[in-house]
């Protein structure tokens, strides 16, 4: 933690970055995002094992961009989101200084996308064991059981869109949900509207989701919706090989094709 603070103080003092996005101690041990803009307030930065939130979402917000060049305290998920955002041209290569903090607290400065790629190559990361176990359980169920499972879960959705705003890949100014001519997705948070919204979001994240699980954590009513986007991403990985958040060069599976893609259900 100390190394992080000294690094942040040094960067802010030299003016290399104008803001350091990191975690600070919230109430009852919770870690919440904080935006350190002066060398003195770098003391607020903390780092421990439950700094797991994905801060990359803030990088595309205009309010944060206005501060100037940011440095970001980056766990694995943040680094993967960084690469995917660079690939989708939402971030310039050198617009962000990533401070990768490994489990043991060692801070490594990663100024360029290539550096991030190499760093990630040694410690890729992915779904947590608990989520993996849930996915396995769902896969065992029959179709009808999965339908009832998701209907009972999505019933609780109140369309607060917390999942959308917490997801770093949901940076679209005008989302499909905001379309009303035509009204692609029914607006009210009833069963149909919820099913359509979450199906659309999963499909829009297929091949782009870095599986950080932030949307699941952000959901106020505790629906495991991160399983949907993670499943869509794994479907793309299994069938086409691409993996979101591994390369800074765009390799969007649904934007490309191979003449010999194998499938067995088209007649």
């Amino acid at each position, binding site marked *: 933690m100390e190394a992080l603070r000294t690094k942040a103080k040094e960067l802010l003092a030299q003016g290399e970055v104008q803001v350091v996005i990191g975690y600070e101690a919230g109430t009852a041990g919770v870690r919440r995002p904080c935006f350190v803009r002066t060398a003195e307030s770098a003391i607020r930065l903390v780092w421990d094992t439950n700094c797991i939130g994905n801060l990359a979402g803030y990088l595309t917000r205009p309010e944060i961009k206005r501060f100037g060049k940011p440095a970001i305290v980056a766990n694995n998920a943040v680094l993967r989101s960084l690469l995917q955002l660079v690939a989708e041209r*939402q971030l310039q290569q050198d617009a962000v200084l990533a401070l990768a903090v490994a489990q043991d607290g060692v801070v490594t400065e990663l100024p360029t996308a290539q550096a991030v790629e190499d760093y990630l190559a040694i410690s890729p990361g992915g779904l947590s064991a608990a989520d993996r176990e849930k996915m396995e359980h769902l896969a065992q169920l029959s179709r009808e059981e999965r339908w009832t499972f998701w209907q009972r879960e999505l019933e609780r959705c109140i369309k607060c869109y917390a999942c959308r705003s917490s997801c770093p890949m949901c940076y679209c100014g005008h989302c499909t949900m905001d379309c009303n001519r035509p009204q692609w997705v029914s607006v009210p948070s009833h069963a149909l509207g919820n099913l359509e919204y979450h199906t659309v979001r999963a499909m829009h994240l297929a091949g782009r989701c870095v599986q950080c699980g932030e949307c699941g954590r952000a959901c106020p009513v505790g629906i495991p919706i991160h399983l949907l986007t993670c499943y869509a991403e794994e479907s793309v990985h299994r069938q086409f090989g691409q993996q979101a958040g591994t390369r800074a060069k765009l390799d969007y599976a649904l934007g490309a094709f191979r003449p010999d893609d194998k499938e067995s259900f088209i007649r």
Partner: protein
Amino acid sequence: MSRIGVFVCHCGENIGSTVDCQEVAARCKQMPGVVHSEDYKYMCSDPGQSMIKQAIEEQGLDGVVVAACSPRMHEPTFRRAVSEAGLNPYLCEMANLREHCSWVHEETDSTTDKATDLVHLQVEKVKRNKPLQPIQVPITKTALVIGGGVAGIQAALDIADSDRKVILLERSPSLGGHMAQLSETFPTLDCSQCILTPKMVEAARHPNITLMTYSELEHLEGFIGNFKATIRKRARKIDEKLCTGCGLCLQKCPTRKISDGFNEGLGMRRAIYVPFPQAVPNTPVIDIQNCSHFRKKKCDRCVKACPTDAIRFEQQDEWITVDVGAIVLATGFKIMRSDQFPEYGYGAYPDIIDGLQFERLASASGPTQGVIKRPSDGKEPETIVFLACAGSRDAAKGVKYCSKICCMYTAKHAMLYKHKAPHGKAYVFYMDIRAAGKNYDEFVRRAIEEDGVKYIRGRVSRIYEEDGKLIVKGADTLLGGRPVEIKADMVVLATAVQPNDGQIDLARKIHVGCDEYGFFAEAHPKLRPVETNTAGIYLAGACQSPRDIPETVAQAGGAAAKVVALFSRDRLTREPLVAEVNRRPSPIYSDCVGCFLCETACPYQAIGQETVTDRDGKLYKTMAKINPGLCQGCGTCVATCRTKAIDLHGYSNEQIYAEIMSL
């Protein structure tokens, strides 16, 4: 409130027999937005069309639905009728009551219900149609012909004769291509130089043709009518304007032992050379790999010999960018090197040669002045065996397709050999003789009957050397597959015709498709053989598939006609059914967030970038922009776009949504 007219057609009794047209027309009157609805026996007839026009004028309709046959049949007819009545043609839609309803269902209520639903679907769609104007695209009236063989020369001359500018691009130092290497040409045995050289000179001298030899296309961008081509003009190390082509430098050059590509490795040339005596342009080229001035920095014999001081050692390659409106691909072919299958001994034994090398031996300007001699010891061969289908029509050996010209040039080779050495024995191993052109079969019969060439129907399994003779082991299938062994002095392999070197890279540079063998893919094998799927790029000659000279010249004329037709109009009009990225007022400028996931989805590379900068030039936003000239309206980008920023005219999101909701 929209004012839509519905016109239900009986199509004689094709529709009327199973669909109650009056009922459908009556039901349509109740649909919201429909102000006029009637049915008629033949809507596509003159009275039918005038009914529509009359209704448009009288009722002030702003949308028309014709419920009749398939739109693939009469959509243009009804859209023209509608536009003659002053309504934008893209506000007229057709409901397919014939192929998709009356012809395929029994005469029941559900069929009439289905017919009503189909009309209702189009009514909902028409309400969301927008008036569209055809896209106007300017055209640069200059053509670029890539390839200086007979195909390229013919295409260039035909286009230039229609008073259009042409740039004729050729990779090697001279025009002529493979035809210049031939001795005589079938079926008339007239010498290829005599019929080609005049055309080469005419192309070089034509006021409308700019000749660029020893140059290659580096990069191409743009679209039909508005291509921008970057051409790399390789340095000849000689100033073309000063050089008179006297040839003194050629005699003085000390480096003599370089294998001559034009003579297919049978002759030698010098470091400074002209490919063949009748080369056009007649300016020599310095081969910097072998010229000792460039290798050891000491020899300037040619500089001293040159009367007009035209040698420029320090000359560098130039990159020239030209604007062109259309491109004709005439890059020709190459003969397959057959060392891939050692069983024929090509490469192991010097006296086993391929078709082009035999042409050089038979050619008067060739290394042996037209006398057929064995490359190994220069003796005149008494027995020559010709192998047809050496690599063609056999997936294991080389390629699956038939190379079309080998049967004819093999018969010609055998005939030329018998004319030059009447006592010599010529054998031809063949599978089937394909001589389908004009006077072709008579030519082959002449070779067999008058010149005594012995044709053996069977394939050769292996050739090996024994006591100085080449033993050709084959089978004669007409005599019950009896094994045949011929002791030959020389063997000529008619190997496969393949796309020229670098053709696949060129295809990638200009985004033209290739087939599995690397030949350019034509737009439609039967109906559009000289066009490609990329608008504005045309094909001529063997680059599209193996082809002989008569067909090549005919196809070159065809490609030229397409270019001249394109250039006959000032502006190019295209169906306005193209995609468009929406625009919003500032500060958003567009729903597009510039992720460009759609860019790779477009098969026509029609999606480019548009940037918005604030007053002092700082980049504010980058957005996608679709080039209406290139977009063909497939809509893949529309479905790929997450923010629904792109929409397709004619099949917009609103229209499709309305259709679904009308069911």
